């Protein structure tokens, strides 16, 4: 069994991360999932949350704002509209993002409002986790 797989994190503007990992945790639409090498091929949508990779070089966490993940046995590609490395230096950016989500939750209506409210809750949790 392969011990590592290729992990790519891509945003529309550029490729953010690309390296070998042993394990990836994804905030799947149906609940969090952990992907390890030789996982069955899956395409899943992501809700905003934290992507966590564990590889030979340690653990990294990214805050992503939704998107989707393409999983094959040998690689994981996460396509996120925005992704921020969860580290103290990005705290401000994530907080700003939370503000935007709150604003949207206030102004949007119907289905969009519900979605925005879920996003606010998730992001608040994310910031809380970072401490």
């Amino acid at each position: 069994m392969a011990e590592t797989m290729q992990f790519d994190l891509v945003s529309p503007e550029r490729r953010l991360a690309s390296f070998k990992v042993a394990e990836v945790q994804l905030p799947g639409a149906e609940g969090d999932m952990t992907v390890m090498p030789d996982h069955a091929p899956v395409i899943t949508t992501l809700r905003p949350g934290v992507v966590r990779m564990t590889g030979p070089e340690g653990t990294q966490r990214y805050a992503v704002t939704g998107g989707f993940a393409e999983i094959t046995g040998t690689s994981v590609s996460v396509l996120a509209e925005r992704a921020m490395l969860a580290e103290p230096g990005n705290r401000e950016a994530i907080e700003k993002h939370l503000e935007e989500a709150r604003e949207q939750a206030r102004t949007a209506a119907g289905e969009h409002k519900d979605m925005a409210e879920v996003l606010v809750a998730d992001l608040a949790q994310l910031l809380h986790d970072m401490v």
Partner: protein
Amino acid sequence: MPSLKDLKNRIQSVKNTRKITKAMQMVAAAKLRRAQDSAEAARPYAERMNAVVGGLAASFGGSDNAPRLLAGTGQDKVHLLVVMTSERGLCGGFNSSIARLARQHAQKLLAQGKTVKIITVGKKGREQLKRDLSSHFIAHVDLGDVKRIGYVDAQKIARDVLARFDAGEFDVATLFFNRFQSVIAQIPTAQQIIPAHFEAGEPSTTLYDYEPSEEAVLADLLPRGVTTQIFTALLENGASEQGARMSAMDNATRNAGDMIDKLTIVYNRSRQASITKELIEIISGAEAL
């Protein structure tokens, strides 16, 4: 016959113009490199997105439960044209070629008795289309303050377009932009984005599981796919604009050089003529004594 002083002033002013166009050319070259870099950096996302959505869309093609964004409204009455041009001029035929293509398209649709609605992105195209199509304008996106095109700009446009589609304001949406081929060649392109159309890549051999479900994934990804197409178009357009400006300014610099050469010859000739004239006057004056 202009005096020597006039000629000298003229040469100086053309030289100043040449300096400016030369500087603009170099600025455009630097910006072009940056624009190409961001287009390059955006490629992995767009390719993956198109492959996944294209694969999904192909498997849904023609089926009844395909999302409206993919299947269309079933009508072909109201067309939305999204015309992307630049915010600044001095870039050769860049804006005219997009405007021409959009105008032709609009006139063809109008002749067929269809309704045309236009969203303009960038002020130059709006100015050019204003003359005969201003009654069809429904919105304008100003990118004048945007230094570097980001995904948020594409999202803003996409959100507007998708909201209008959901509200039933149009049946078919087409993007007009310049596809970047090289510095001297930009191809005005019309691309249909709604009903969503993805270039069919190679059919994927892997059988994927879909979470939550194939329909849900497709419904979630289609708007993102449309946004990505708009973003790609914006980037292509940005690179094309700088390429067009660069070659236009290169031309202008060369023309200014030619003009300086011509004026210098005229200047030297008339200087020589005036010296000869003076000599003749002195000599004939001396002979008369």
